[in-house]
């Protein structure tokens, strides 16, 4: 992976960076999902991260990487507040609230151009002066970090807590696990990385507007990838992202519009036929054909 940039041209490198960014967001979403909470509003946190980085650069010339970090931290703080207020809600209502959250932010952003640049958006100079290799390394590091964090969660007591809350919140409570506290923790971690991704996005693409970074498309993408690949696993979001990005690019080149239809189809097919995603399919159907079952 280290020598990868030397092997491919800049177009491909750009695709790779975009894919890694998507993986980070997919994995972050999955972290929160492990507690049974489905967010359809990751765009809200993404946008906060994006704008923090961009605005801080614009006003005080904060170096990009620090800006991304600031974006991540601010997203995390927002998540703490939002989390404590809304994570008491069960599944559906939480989901609806997250959608409302992202849309509300979009409206607020548009109506306060003095502070946020409004519809005009905010621009920043190209990241690392356009040196894509450096961008690649940065995103690779963050991706590795996310994977590491997920692995840490999986091999610690947190895994037990998250799963217990997800399966049956009341029972978890009785067992002494405070559901809200753990849910907020998951939300915080998820928000941190999503916010960082937003900050990276704003510097990498040099120009952001509210419609885009708070858009529902981002929130949906965040959830389709892990669901496709396999929820509550490390490799699931990764595989899901790669495949979806590949399918997307292929469809984009072949058909003019509506290629997002694939997202809808994937969601329906996965829920109906392979609720554990591709990874689950692999484990349960394909691996046993080889005579062994991985536990």
């Amino acid at each position: 992976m280290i020598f990868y940039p030397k092997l491919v041209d800049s177009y491909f490198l750009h695709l790779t960076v975009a894919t890694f960014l998507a993986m980070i967001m997919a994995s972050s979403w999955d972290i929160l999902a492990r507690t049974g909470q489905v967010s359809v509003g990751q765009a809200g946190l993404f946008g906060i991260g994006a704008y923090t980085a961009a605005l801080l650069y614009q006003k005080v010339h904060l170096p990009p990487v620090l800006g991304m970090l600031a974006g991540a931290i601010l997203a995390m703080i927002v998540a703490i507040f939002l989390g404590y207020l809304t994570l008491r809600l069960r599944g559906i209502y939480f989901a609806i609230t997250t959608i409302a959250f992202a849309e509300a932010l979009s409206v607020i952003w548009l109506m306060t151009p003095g502070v946020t640049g409004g519809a005009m958006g905010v621009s920043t100079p190209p990241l690392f002066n356009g040196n894509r290799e450096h961008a690649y390394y940065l995103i690779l590091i963050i991706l590795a970090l996310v994977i590491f964090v997920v692995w840490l969660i999986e091999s610690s007591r947190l895994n037990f807590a998250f799963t217990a809350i997800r399966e049956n919140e009341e029972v978890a409570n009785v067992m002494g696990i405070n559901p809200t506290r753990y849910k907020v923790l998951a939300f915080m971690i998820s928000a941190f990385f999503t916010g960082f991704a937003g900050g990276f996005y704003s510097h990498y693409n040099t120009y952001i507007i509210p419609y885009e970074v708070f858009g529902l498309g981002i929130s949906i993408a965040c959830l389709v990838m892990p669901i496709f690949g396999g929820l509550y696993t490390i490799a699931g979001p990764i595989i899901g992202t790669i495949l979806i990005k590949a399918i997307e690019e292929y469809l984009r080149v072949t058909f003019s519009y509506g290629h997002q239809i694939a997202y809808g189809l994937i969601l329906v097919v996965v829920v109906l036929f392979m609720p554990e995603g591709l990874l689950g399919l692999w484990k349960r159907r394909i691996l046993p054909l080889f005579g062994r079952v991985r536990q």
Partner: protein
Amino acid sequence: MKKKGFRFVLGLCGMGMILAGFLYGGSVMAQDTIKIGAVLPLSKAAFAQAGEEQRRGLLMALEEINQAGGVLGKKVELIIEDDTGEPSVGIAAAEKLLTRDKVVALIGGYSSTITFAQLNAIQRLEPFVAWVGASSTKVEHEFGPKRWFFHYHPWDYHRQSTIRDFLLTISPRPKTIAVAYEDGIYGTTSREYVVKYLKEKGFEIVFDERFKSGSSDFTPMLTKIKKANPDVFYWVAYAGDTTLIMKQSKEIDFNPKLFLSVAINFPQYKDSLGATGDYVGGVDVWIPGMKLQETVKWMEKFKKAYPGRTPEYWVPLAYTNLMTVVDAIKGAGSTEKEKLIAAMEKTDYNSPLGKMTFKKSEEGGLHQAIDEQIITQWQAGVSHVVYPASKATGKLIYPTPNWKNR
């Protein structure tokens, strides 16, 4: 376990990359053609119509060019990429065309945001760009001064200066204006300039508010505007909003002396509004009804190629885009960039929109094609050019008759 899991996942990434590489790596065959690349919005709902229209214009020009033998003895190959309305895809598309397909010119374009991101990403390559889209002066400030950047679409202020000049020709001169604008870049920049220009000339702005594009109900806003009793009601919105605004203005019996907007010549205007759409004025780049010789000739070609359709200005603009680029290649006698730039600067082409040459523009642009716009007014279901006098096909009807008297 940690190391193993790690390597497993990263290995997966690697495999995935290789897989993906095969997907797009192999398709480009070496052909003896002149390759030109266009990036258009073809799948995002709000932009798709303009993208489609551009595509039609490009294909019309392409056929004509290749039927006449192409250029420099070779056929022209047009590679169209969809930016899906997202900057990062726009960047990928532009990069692919330049670095993989090795196109000699990058054309097309629409959204100012995506343009900005794309140009930022590819400027290190100093490519030859003949760009149709983008009207935001942000793009002009940043890339206008680059010698490899040629731009066709009027900048935002061109629209508003035309409006100002037009209003000054009306007699008796209107005194009060109400301004409403959609909350995106389109509306916000337009409003900025119009307020600036109109205040400079002594007009009084009695209402100045933005609205959310895609709202279903404009009656609260229109009621407020009606109360302010302006001579002119000027709004900036996309097609869908404009339709509702006119319908709802009629509902609440709002009668300014002039309804003025920006895009009122889109193909569904007549069907959507019928008689309700009459008397509305708008600033535009071009309408099919213009009486220039080139326009008439070109409209014949268009009707043959796409019978039953009414073109918006994107079609002849894109047509002109490709034609002028190929002309420059012909004039340069080569596809070498420096020669292309020199030849392009000498462009003097009789397009369906009028004479096309590249000149400097007000806020830093070096190569700007269009800087003059027209004002049209719908009269009895036909869109007439009413300003400037030199291009007029009809006379402005002012003041607008009340709804009850129509």
